[in-house]
């Protein structure tokens, strides 16, 4: 079985702040891979690196066998037609209706007649349960609906790889359940490869084939969900069971608390 995405020893820094130091992970074709980690460790950055929007300082990023950072504009854009990304905010185009949003990639990249585009859009919207909402504008949608509409747009071109950026954040339990099922069924029925970046442990572990935990600028644990849940390493336990004390600092580091308080008295 081949790997669709391969990251090898990736280093990346945002200005002076180092984000990754030696990150390696692989995503096998046709599988759902979860990438988990505390907030603020650059999980979205990871997806942007894979999508070629950011270039690593060193290391190799391969998607479908192609070295992404080395690609020039044209092959990069060709490669991007095969992947799609679901943004945390949905990132729907606010000046277009839901229908036109989903039709957008089809109109941009294919020469299909409008009647065929209509059928495809309706099928995609049916898959996410928004066929009746096609005439609404993005501003009229709830957060959950917006994300589902964005998902319909993301699968419009039948990509090989789909990257989900925090798909569960801020969802009510019902739409959370719907999205979990959608990711699973898209993966099973369309045979696409998924990367789910999240910190919602229970949801993602219920659908992932394999999971990575990122902390301290690299992968600190990996394995199949069951194995990870029974892992007894301190950092894995802390993250999967949500404990404030452990190797990952909950407090943004600063002076000692007592010293800081006393500073005011001086």
């Amino acid at each position: 079985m081949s790997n669709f995405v391969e990251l090898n020893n990736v280093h990346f820094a945002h200005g002076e702040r180092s984000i990754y130091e030696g990150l390696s992970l692989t995503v096998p074709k046709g599988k759902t891979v979860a990438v988990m980690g505390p907030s603020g460790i650059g999980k979205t950055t990871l997806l942007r690196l894979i999508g070629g929007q950011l270039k690593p300082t060193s290391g190799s990023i391969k998607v479908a066998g192609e070295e992404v950072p080395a690609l020039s504009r044209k092959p990069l854009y060709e490669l991007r037609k095969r992947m799609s990304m679901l943004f945390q905010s949905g990132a729907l185009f606010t000046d277009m209706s839901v229908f036109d949003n989903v039709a957008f990639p089809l109109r941009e990249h294919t020469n299909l007649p409008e009647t065929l585009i209509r059928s495809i859009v309706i099928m995609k919207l049916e898959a996410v349960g928004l066929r009746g909402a096609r005439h609404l504008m993005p501003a009229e949608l709830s957060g959950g609906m917006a994300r589902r509409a964005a998902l319909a747009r993301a699968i419009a071109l039948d990509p090989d790889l789909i990257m989900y950026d925090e798909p569960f954040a801020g969802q009510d339990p019902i739409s959370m359940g719907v999205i979990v099922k959608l990711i699973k069924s898209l993966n099973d029925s369309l045979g696409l490869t998924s990367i789910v970046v999240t910190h919602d442990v229970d949801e993602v572990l219920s659908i992932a084939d394999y999971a990575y935990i990122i902390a301290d600028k690299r992968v600190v644990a990996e394995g199949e969900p069951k194995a990870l849940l029974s892992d007894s390493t301190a950092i894995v336990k802390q993250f999967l069971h949500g404990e404030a004390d452990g190797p990952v600092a909950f407090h943004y580091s600063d002076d000692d608390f007592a010293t800081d308080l006393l500073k005011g008295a001086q």
Partner: protein
Amino acid sequence: MEMLRRLGKKSLDQVAGIGYALAMLMNALIGKPNPRKSLPLFIHQMYVVGVLSLLIIIVSGLFIGMVLGLQGYTILVDYGAEQSLGPMVALSLLRELGPVVTALLFAGRAGSALTAEIGLMKATEQLSSLEMMAVDPLRRVVAPRFWAGFVSMPLLALIFSAVGIYGGYLVGSGWLGVDEGAFWSVMQSSVDWYDDLLNGVIKSIVFAFVVTWIALYKGYRAVPTSAGISAATTSTVVTASLTILGLDFILTALMFGG
């Protein structure tokens, strides 16, 4: 020493900014055109940027022309030269006020809107998602807006001047009693097609290029937060206005100075 360091950093940032702006424009405009896709986008932007600016341009032009007629008359009548009111109004508008005031109004009306729109598209990740959909936001979003601004502003400046001249005529002839025949015929004989009209149009083409470019660049490089977008919008209006006035001096010196 610290001040020197800061000055150095600031100038480096400025130069880098100009570089980014140039790169943005090059990437947006150079490439194989695809009229089937870009023409509808361009026409839509012409409507948003040009047609919707018409009202403010026409109203301002009319009032500025009327004020010119009034002020010009009170000065000229002392010398018995009120016959020259026509050329005075026409020359002021065609050479200076038409291009400059239109550019200033355009920066405030359309430029700020362009910056805010693109900044907000950036903040809501719409530009990023375009990129991930293999659609270049520079060509899809920036290019049609640039062309629309570049084409529409000189046209707006001409409309401004025409309406302004009519305003001057209304006040001068209609109200203050300058002879109608003299107003138009003296204007016709003293306004030169090349020296006055064409130079004015060249000015507004330069302004159109610069104002639209500044507005798009400020939006594209905006810090994607609410404070960042408001700062970018302000910066568009301030930078564009100062650039217009500075360039106007240089252009006037080149065109009419020698």
